[in-house]
């Protein structure tokens, strides 16, 4: 406990309660403890997060999609410099941050995944050195705020902290608007593509139409917002650094999307002085992220789990998945959003030609959608039925949030 001696007495007590509660929560099987522990600690010391952040060099990662993976990659990259505290289980609100920092003890560095709604609050509390802004798109429709409103909140939050360095996605007009008022030398732009564009047809600055051009270019018809020239880019499966040097990045995680997440992590780490050459092997050692991308052998099938929680991440999952038998599982419980209409925002036609199985609480919604989309499918009641229905070899599983958790729990039980 030597690392806590420098903390104010109330903070030290709060940290101790927080850790105990987290340990109890884990021991009783009620969770990984990061939320309950953080919540109790913050009741005792409301400034606990600020106290725990003080003295650390911190990077925050936020956006609708890719933040868990990018956080994991960034923590791996900063590991070149020393110990890194991070919230690795998707507990991305201030209670989760508090718990992660308390649990890690004294580290010089911290990388925190931040829920997009809490970014302003967490910037205020942690005074980060770098903030990475990945993307903004619709998520959990029946309770999320308007996308443009979120971009505006980000912009205001960043305007209050002009010394924070921003690493931002040049391909997403909402992100460019959010970072656009920042001093130009405190922004590093990266390009990792934007598959989902349906939430950025309208310019967040003026309401004009965003026109898309060749090679990923875009600009508002009124000329007040356009794609900045990115310093970090992807080219032919390699990450190109600002000095123009291309780097081969061998990842275990699939798809161009994850290569883009890796590029973002390298850009953030570079602001801390990490050379990409030193960081790249560490990115290649990441095999799964909070159960996502994990590969599990079951009855001769190599099962891989992909999480798809909103239209943008469904498109990404189709890109990551092998051309192999694929199980789609959909629920509509509270964390998923109760409305399944978003199924029609996703084009499932990339799955044509693959053996497709559907499952989950809302498999019937999916069945109707696939019929309209011209994608043949079979309905299965359980995950075990799905495994039995496919030949030996790869089985890709793409599921939304609670369906993903259900399948993970079922896989954990048999292992």
């Amino acid at each position, binding site marked *: 406990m030597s690392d806590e001696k420098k903390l104010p007495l109330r903070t030290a007590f709060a940290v101790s309660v927080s850790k105990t509660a987290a340990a109890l929560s884990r021991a009783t099987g009620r969770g990984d403890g990061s939320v309950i522990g953080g919540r109790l600690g913050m009741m005792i010391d409301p400034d606990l997060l600020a106290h725990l952040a003080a003295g650390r060099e911190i990077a925050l990662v936020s956006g609708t999609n890719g933040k868990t993976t990018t956080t994991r990659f960034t923590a791996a990259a900063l590991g070149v410099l020393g110990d890194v505290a991070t919230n690795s289980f998707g507990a991305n609100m201030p209670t989760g941050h508090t718990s992660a920092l308390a649990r890690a003890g004294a580290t010089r560095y911290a990388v925190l995944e931040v829920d997009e709604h809490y970014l302003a609050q967490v910037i205020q509390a942690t005074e980060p050195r770098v903030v990475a802004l990945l993307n903004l798109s619709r998520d959990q*429709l029946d309770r999320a705020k308007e996308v443009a409103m979120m971009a505006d909140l980000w912009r205001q939050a960043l305007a209050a902290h002009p010394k924070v360095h921003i690493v931002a996605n040049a391909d997403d007009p909402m992100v460019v608007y959010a970072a656009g008022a920042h001093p130009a030398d405190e922004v590093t732009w990266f390009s990792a593509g934007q598959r989902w564009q*349906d939430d950025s*047809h309208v310019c967040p600055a003026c*309401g004009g139409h965003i026109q898309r051009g060749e090679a990923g270019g875009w600009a508002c018809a009124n000329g007040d917002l356009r794609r900045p020239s990115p310093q970090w880019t992807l080219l032919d499966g390699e990450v190109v650094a600002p000095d123009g040097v291309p780097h081969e990045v061998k990842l275990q995680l699939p798809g161009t999307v994850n290569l883009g997440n890796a590029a973002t992590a390298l850009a953030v780490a570079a602001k801390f002085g990490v050379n990409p050459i030193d960081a790249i092997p560490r990115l290649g050692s990441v095999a799964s992220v909070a159960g996502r991308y994990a590969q599990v052998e079951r009855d001769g099938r190599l099962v891989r789990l992909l999480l798809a929680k909103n239209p943008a991440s469904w498109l990404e999952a189709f890109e990551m998945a092998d051309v192999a038998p694929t199980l789609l599982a959909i629920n509509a419980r509270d964390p998923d959003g*109760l409305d399944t*209409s978003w199924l029609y*925002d996703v084009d499932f036609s990339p799955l044509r030609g693959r053996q497709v199985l559907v499952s989950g609480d809302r498999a019937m919604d999916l069945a*109707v959608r696939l019929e*309209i989309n011209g994608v043949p499918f079979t309905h299965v009641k359980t995950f075990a039925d799905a495994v039995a229905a496919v030949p030996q070899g790869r089985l890709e599983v793409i599921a939304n949030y609670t369906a993903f958790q259900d399948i993970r729990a079922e896989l954990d039980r048999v292992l």
Partner: protein
Amino acid sequence: MSSDLNGGLQIVWVYPDLLSTYGDRGNMLILAHRARARGIPAQTIEVRSDQRLPDQGDIYLLGGGEDGPQALAAQRLLTDGGLARAAANRAVIFAVCAGYQLLGSTFFAKGDKCPGLDMIDISSDRGPSRAVGELAGDVDPTLGLPPLTGFENHGGRTHLGPGVKPLVRVTTGVGNDGVTEGAWSETILGTYAHGPALARNPALADLLLCWATGEQSLGPLDDTWPDRLRAERLTAVGR
């Protein structure tokens, strides 16, 4: 019947850049799918808010949207005039949520009362709370449809004038005001139901196709999956 269908059925999705918050593309895809399955050629046309709206389409679709885009869509449709001309040609108009509200005389967006297109006899204001959840009820018997099932998510309340009929008597959810849901008049039909509405209510899709083609009825389709979806959703609300 709005035109001879020589070039096929023209299905126009109005302003997907502004009015497409809840899978509204689905209604367009389902209409085209069910028309083609009967051998009726169908063409889908997506018209952005910076483009002129053609007035010779057979079916026009308006979807849901947040306050800002809704007000902008109403403004541009008033300036454009194409939808009013299409209605005068007796085109079919199917409007959902924000799109439904803006067909009336007035609606509320971002705290302001906004002028609507005044194409049907409704007006909308704000309710005491947001209506979010399953929506179900019995459809106006003159339309000959089975119960409506959908999902609603809106803060508006809609008042019907004598020029329209309620689409549904509500048994679950809120709809217009907790008693009725949606409205229809001639070949214009509006609803608060997402889902999308036509995925959960294929008979409603067929009604719109009948209105557009002038057919009395259309050939049967294998609706195994939509029927199972309907049964599941209606059972979930105790029907």
